[in-house]
């Protein structure tokens, strides 16, 4: 009895003093205090912590070589060089930032607004919605396995995740922030000051948050989005029972030189990371998207887009750069409808040589769809934070529905 009451008394005193401390030190801040866990000191799945506190990528494709080390080939081919070596704390900090709408100018959008975890890190829209409900020009690409890509955006205009996010954060039609305002905002949130100091201990506790730290943490989190454990992968590693007969038929259509899907959507990433003009139609009323012609200042790339990965493709409808096709079936059917059949009459595009007239049957198209669905794998889905360091709510409620 006595012991218990002592403990009670002590904890009461403790709570009181903690409350007082909080009152004095936090009361001048406007945002509500949110109790947050410290940053995760474990690597996310798919990574091993090394002695230098870095997360090193580990996956079954490391059993295999890849021709000329480019990460394109057949079933048992290694991946291209990817990004890893971030600390668990950086990755976890990046996770909070990714979901936090405080990154946008008016607190309305986070990265996850257009890259929702449960929509394949895309948004389910033909083209994304930007600031003030503005309809943007292109679809949000998936972020699964984005750490292995050497060019970002549909038109490939960014060479790194850092470059990519700089554009998005500060684009007037997207998150519309400014570097000054973003820094100012984050540096005025104690939680973030504490978390950044934890993720970047070597730079001293009291230093201000810097842009490079924000970029690095966001990049770190995105590289942790790894999807390499689909049914297809089980087949590729030698367990042939992983796919049923129809799915295997689909795989064989996929890689045959009639359909030629695998020529550009090459395993193991299901992209060869090249640009291709395939001549898909735009949704009604939209003009032709010049694509990579603009950043590369090259007429021959008019209408060219980066070949997207097909991993988790079943989760990211609608399809193509402006979401013209609502279903996978429509998307695969496009390729058998004739070379250049959807190119506007007044346009001359240099359609990729692999686009031809394969005369795929309905049966084959159905099998292709069966196969594409075997590329689903969300087993390394990250946890969505329960509370955000900014105290803001996670904007998109759909995100919370698994």
């Amino acid at each position, binding site marked *: 009895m006595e012991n218990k009451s002592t403990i009670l008394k002590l904890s009461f005193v403790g709570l009181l003093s903690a409350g007082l401390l909080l009152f004095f030190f936090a009361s001048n801040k406007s945002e509500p205090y949110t109790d947050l866990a410290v940053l995760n000191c474990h690597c996310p799945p798919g990574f091993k912590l090394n002695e230098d506190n870095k997360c090193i990528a580990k996956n079954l494709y490391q059993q295999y070589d890849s021709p000329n080390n480019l990460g394109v080939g057949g079933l048992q081919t290694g991946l291209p060089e990817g990004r890893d070596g971030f600390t668990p704390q950086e990755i976890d900090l990046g996770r909070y930032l990714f979901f936090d709408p405080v990154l946008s100018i008016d607190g309305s959008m986070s990265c996850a607004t257009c890259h929702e975890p449960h929509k394949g890190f895309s948004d389910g829209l033909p083209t994304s919605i930007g600031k003030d409900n503005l309809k943007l020009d292109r679809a949000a690409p998936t972020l699964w396995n984005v750490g292995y890509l050497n060019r970002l955006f549909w038109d490939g205009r960014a060479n790194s995740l850092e470059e990519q996010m700089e554009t998005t954060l500060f684009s007037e039609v997207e998150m519309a922030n400014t570097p000054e305002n973003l820094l100012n905002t984050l540096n005025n949130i104690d939680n973030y000051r504490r978390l950044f100091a934890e993720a970047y201990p070597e730079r001293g506790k009291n230093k201000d948050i810097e842009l490079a730290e924000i970029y690095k943490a966001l990049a770190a989190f995105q590289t942790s989005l790894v999807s390499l454990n689909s049914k297809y992968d089980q087949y590729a590693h030698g367990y042939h029972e992983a796919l049923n007969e129809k799915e295997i038929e689909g795989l*064989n259509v996929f890689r*045959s030189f009639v359909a030629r899907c695998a020529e550009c959507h090459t395993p193991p990433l299901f992209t060869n990371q090249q640009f291709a003009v395939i001549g898909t139609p735009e949704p009604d009323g939209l003009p032709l998207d010049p694509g990579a012609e603009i950043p590369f200042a090259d007429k021959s790339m008019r209408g060219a887009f980066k070949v997207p990965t097909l991993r988790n493709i079943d989760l990211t409808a609608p399809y193509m750069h402006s979401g013209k096709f609502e279903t996978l079936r429509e998307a695969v059917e496009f390729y058998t409808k004739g070379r250049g059949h959807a190119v506007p009459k007044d346009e001359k595009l240099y359609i990729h040589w692999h686009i031809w007239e394969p005369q795929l049957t309905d049966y084959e198209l159905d099998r292709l769809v069966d196969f594409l669905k075997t590329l689903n794998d969300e087993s390394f889905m990250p946890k969505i934070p329960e509370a955000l360091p900014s105290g803001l709510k996670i904007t998109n409620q759909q995100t919370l529905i698994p």
Partner: protein
Amino acid sequence: MKSTLFKIIGGLLLLAIGVFLGRTLLSSSGESTVPMPSTMQYRNIGHSGDTTQVAQRKEFTGQIIEVKKGGSIQEAVKAANPGDLIRVFPGTYSENVYIDKDDISLQGVVIKGEWPTLNGNHKINDAFLYSGNGILIENFKIINYKGNGIMGQAGNNFIIRNNWIIDTGVYGIFPQFGKNGLIEHNVLSKIADAAIYVGMCDNIDVLHNEVFDSVAGIEIENSRHCLVENNYVHNNTGGLLAFITPGLPIKTAFNIIFRNNFVVNNNHPNFGAPGSTVASIPPGTGILIMAADDVIIENNIITGNKNTGITIVDLATGDPKANDPNSEGNPDRVVILDNIMFDNGNDPTGEIKAIMLTQLDSKGPDIFAYGGGTGSTIRDKNRYRTFGLDGYGPAQIEDTKDIKTFMLNAPVPPRSVTDQELGEITYYGVCAGCHAFGTTLIGVDTQIIKEIYVDNPQGIVNYITKPLNLRDDYPEMPPQDYLSEEAKMAVAKYILQMTN
């Protein structure tokens, strides 16, 4: 008298025994005399050309699986294990055979001119599609497919030999992303793109093939270290090609030898699919070098090609429509050694015709070079009719007789991972989705698993193969039976030695 009788009887007896023995022992059926396929042979480097000593060769250690008329080659492949030989007897097989296993050999057995024939009826995409290493495919007749006769996607150390391939769609033989391969003694015709297409490969020999009535005969594209020798290449639109095609992930083509080939009368009208790279090859093209570097053309017989004998162009000239800033588009350091060339260019077409007319010449040249490129040389420029070879200096080599092969002197080894590494990548690459050491994610803490199964890796293997839901507070674990036995044991042992 007696002894003579004995001798006669003895002689007759011996004869009878001899006939009996001969009948029973020597008159075996045709089938059992099928020789084993000869496998890849690796000679020691540095050996002089007069030795045939083989340092290493693959031995057949597996089962022989026979497929007879009415059977299915694919079913045999499904049943086969690495090291097995699948023998296919005469008959017509309308299937798409895919081989996602290593070290499988497929040998057709031709009996009295009857071939095992794969017939796609213009409906099936590919006859053979492989992704494994160490694949051997020989003695098949392959006809009427839509895509390819034989296509490889990755797969090193392959042999494709003695196949008779007619009208199999886009390509006849098409290894892609392969290293160390041999394509020999195949006869191919009526292919709408390249009959033999070596794409994004390394260290390939293409020897003793006959290739005709196709758009492109033998095409070496975005590949390195390829020897194309002793082939008879006739009546295609273009005969021998060394290309860089822009927009592919592997962007170089160099160190290619065209040697001792007949490149004759390649004047077939172009029937390539609209938009394909080969659709723009003018009929009458003997050899075409586009953007490839370090190509040596030696001792070929190049005659009767109506447009040109040899055309050498850069990408900007040859394929201006697809730009790729990462592909270097100039053919550099082309070497033309002794070749027999006559009767080429009798009826030039298109741009070459126009360019030659500016030279007041109505014939196409033996050798035509146009566009960029540096360092190219020719051994005896005077003997040929040439255009655009002003920059070509004298060749610095006389021949390539020291190069016997571009294949490797040992098979490309599979990347080897230790059990420890296999355990590690399996743990972090698969198990870590639900388990972590010292903390609970979705499944049980790995540390607890480790403590339960001390010295009992097999216990872990058994559990993960067929998990039982032992704990109410955890979700049911999906079986990990798709992992190989090797990987399961490796990861079990890995877990047992983890410390953090």
